[in-house]
């Protein structure tokens, strides 16, 4: 800022800095409750799992580079393909979206100083870390799960998977599910209660609508998965009967419970990406989003409708005709809100004056890949077509286009977009563009031929294939594409890593951004905003008079909330100022609670029931500890 700061302002800022100062060093990171630090922790941990999942993918592709290869034996291949899916979905994409982007940006975008439950926020991170380690202890000890990421029974039952691999799968997912549920609850309460006074719902950025929709979807979808996993473990470890026909169970029960979770999960994966796209586009085309209310409504509808279509994953199972027809029809309905968002983005780009910088390139790549993935998805609603292509590489093509192309591309774009805000430095633009093109081309070379292979009859999850099948050429191309894709991603992250140390200093608002985070420093101070911002529209940064008023308020000490770790709470819809909340600052309890939980899950895995009971009691004590220090004593 080149404007000279009046002395009163400096005094206030110093006071806020003192109040909100983070404990230094490692201890500070271990006990932090600051949403930005937690976001950064989530970022690097999810990135690690992205790498692990990527290595698994490259191993799979290397095994499939030609017919009858022996890079991986069938047991290892099955472990790699199961772990790849599980890692990417549960330990990369959702934690990166919700935990990294959501945690870091939601309070900033709504003009708040932290999430509604800061210590719970920290706890969700430590649980995520412990759960990921838990799964990978299984992987590295030769006990990775090997029944696929959706783990159908009876293959996943004790009789056909006697080792502990499936137990690692089920327990690590139950464990991380606690984190994701708590994270979703935190996001919902934050978005409803902690918005800056004046930010009524219709003035809230679309990014927040997307995260609100995602969080509600998680709250209602995760319990179905938890139920399925609990029943599975009761059957595997304690001899209960739910899925085995001979004792009155039904394997299709697993499929129903799993997909009641699993289908909303795929919308959970993609909605944050929609939110990021709707943040980046207005900034780079310098125009407000076309049909804003329709887009907000569409984001909510996608989350809601996603609950009614799960059995379209089960069209080959032998369900009644009427049932399959209903689910096909319902699946088609989801195309509408997706279409509305898609054309709103495209129209905004066409009618604006776009600057094709790296973040926008990623979003345009996302739009193209999402259309392709969406189109192949629509074809599944043609039931006879689905009954031919399900379980083939056609499906693998579809979901990689929508998950990798449509969910990950915006994440990468978002990393470039918010890089200056988080680090205070700019990345190398030309290098960024080159990395985008490398990745985009690699993505298409890897995944497009899979449509053809699927239509040609190549089933998924096959560890090898014969030379006489005619699948050799395309598999070779896909594997080379995968290596190219990996190179593209390495280039992406090398750019960011090097720019972290060598990039040019960035100011508060290098892009001319539309949302509030661009009004504060880069990186933001611990307290985010010295003054709780005034908000009159969803494009707060483009309302100059409001930002002027903030500067005056800072000088006069209005809405600076300097008496402690304070942030305002407002009414849910109209954001009228209701209370001033005192936020916790540092706590050692979150990592301790997470460790106690990890101990309980480990005891269950090892079937040490007494140990599990003892550690449950210890867990209860840590939870009591968590609540010992009440806010007024902070």
């Amino acid at each position, binding site marked *: 800022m080149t404007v000279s700061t009046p002395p009163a302002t400096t005094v206030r800022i110093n006071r806020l800095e003192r109040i909100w100062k983070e404990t230094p060093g490692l201890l500070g990171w271990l006990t932090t409750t600051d949403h930005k630090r937690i976001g950064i922790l989530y970022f690097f941990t999810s990135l690690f799992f992205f790498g692990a999942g990527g290595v698994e993918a490259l191993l799979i592709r290397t095994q499939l580079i030609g017919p009858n290869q022996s890079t991986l034996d069938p047991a290892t291949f099955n472990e790699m393909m199961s772990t790849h899916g599980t890692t990417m979905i549960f330990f990369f994409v959702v934690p990166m979206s919700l935990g990294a982007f959501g945690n870091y940006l939601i309070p900033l975008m709504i003009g708040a100083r932290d999430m509604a439950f800061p210590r719970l926020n920290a706890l969700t991170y430590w649980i995520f870390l412990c759960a990921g380690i838990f799964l990978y202890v299984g992987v590295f000890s030769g006990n990775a799960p090997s029944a696929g990421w959706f783990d159908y029974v009876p293959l996943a039952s004790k009789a056909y998977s006697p080792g502990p691999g499936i137990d690692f799968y089920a327990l690590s997912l139950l464990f991380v599910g606690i984190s994701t549920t708590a994270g979703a609850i935190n996001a919902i309460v934050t978005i409803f209660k902690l918005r800056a006074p004046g930010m009524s719902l219709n003035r809230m950025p679309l990014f927040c609508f997307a995260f609100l929709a995602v969080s509600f979807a998680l709250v209602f979808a995760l319990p179905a998965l938890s139920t399925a996993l609990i029943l599975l473990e009761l059957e595997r470890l304690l001899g209960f009967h739910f899925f085995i026909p001979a004792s009155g169970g039904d394997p299709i029960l697993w499929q129903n419970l799993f997909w009641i979770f699993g289908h909303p999960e795929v919308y959970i994966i993609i909605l944050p990406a929609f939110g990021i796209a709707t943040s980046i586009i207005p900034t780079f085309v310098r125009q407000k989003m076309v049909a804003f209310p329709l887009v907000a409504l569409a984001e909510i509808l996608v989350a809601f409708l996603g609950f009614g279509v799960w059995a379209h994953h089960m069209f080959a199972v032998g369900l009644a005709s009427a049932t399959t027809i209903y689910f096909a029809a319902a699946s088609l309905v989801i195309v509408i809100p997706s279409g509305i968002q898609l054309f709103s983005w495209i129209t905004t780009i066409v009618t604006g004056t776009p600057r094709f910088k790296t973040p926008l390139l990623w979003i345009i790549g996302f739009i193209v890949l999402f259309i392709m993935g969406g189109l192949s998805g629509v074809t599944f609603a043609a039931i006879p077509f689905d009954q031919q292509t399900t379980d083939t590489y056609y499906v693998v093509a579809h979901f990689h286009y929508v998950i990798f192309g449509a969910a990950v591309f915006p994440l990468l774009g978002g990393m470039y977009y918010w890089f200056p805000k988080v680090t205070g430095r700019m990345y190398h633009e030309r290098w960024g563009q080159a990395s985008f093109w490398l990745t985009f081309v690699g993505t298409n070379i890897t995944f497009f031929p899979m449509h053809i292979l699927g239509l040609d009859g190549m089933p998924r999850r096959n560890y090898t294939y014969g030379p006489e099948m005619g699948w050799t050429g395309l598999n070779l191309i896909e594997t080379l594409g995968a290596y190219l894709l990996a190179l593209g991603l390495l280039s992406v992250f090398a750019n960011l890593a090097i720019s972290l140390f060598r990039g040019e200093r960035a100011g508060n608002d290098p892009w001319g951004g539309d949302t509030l985070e661009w009004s504060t420093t880069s990186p933001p101070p611990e307290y985010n905003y010295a003054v709780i911002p005034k908000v009159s529209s969803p494009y707060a940064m483009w309302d100059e008079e409001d930002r002027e008023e903030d500067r005056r308020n800072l000088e006069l000490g209005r809405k600076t909330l300097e008496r402690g770790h304070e942030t305002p709470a407002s009414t849910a819809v109209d954001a009228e100022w209701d209370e*001033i909340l005192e936020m916790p600052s540092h706590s050692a309890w979150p990592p301790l609670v997470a460790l106690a939980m990890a101990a309980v899950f480990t005891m269950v895995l090892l079937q040490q029931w007494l140990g599990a009971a003892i550690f449950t009691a210890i867990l209860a004590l840590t939870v009591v500890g968590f609540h010992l220090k009440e806010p007024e004593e902070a």
Partner: protein
Amino acid sequence: MSSVPRSSIPRSMEASGPGEAGAVAAARRTAPSGWWGAALLIATEATLFSCLIATYFYLRFKTGEWPPNGIEKPSVTLPLVFTGMLVATSLPMFLSVKAAKGGAVRAAWWLLALATAVQATYLGLQIHLMVDDLNSFSPQVNAYASIYYTLITTHHAHVAIGLALDAWLLWKLARGITNYRLIALRVAAFYWYFVSVAAVAVVLTQLYPSL
């Protein structure tokens, strides 16, 4: 110098003592964050119970005889009476919250203690019934037994957690009331209303073959 434009906006966390906590609660226009968080947690637990109950009926409709393999149909009277006992504790819980909001902390404490005692008795009686059941058929016998015990044990676990919450509150409220503890009491009451509703759903499912 720091001032708030509307000086009537409470710094809620500073509220301690019976009158202040109640005043803060009365001044609020929306429910506190803690209550919202509890409501969402209850939503997830309600979904969990729905999935378990759906599983019960899914398995039922895949099976001919229910209960199968000569397991006796559950007896109706005692479970219903006990459930009624639990649902009845909603009244002292409700009154406890009302008392606390009005500043009558001792009354609130005793009402909570009464509710806790009945809830604990309920759990004890239910466990006794379950042990009786276990003596006649084990969960590993067939799918009916497995879902039967899973459903009621999940409910008992929720009751146990509620009792732990009660115990914590009784300990804290004995040392006085603050805004934080008042929110906690509201959350506990809300949680118990949920557990009561879940108890009715669970017992009706459990007794379904006999109804």
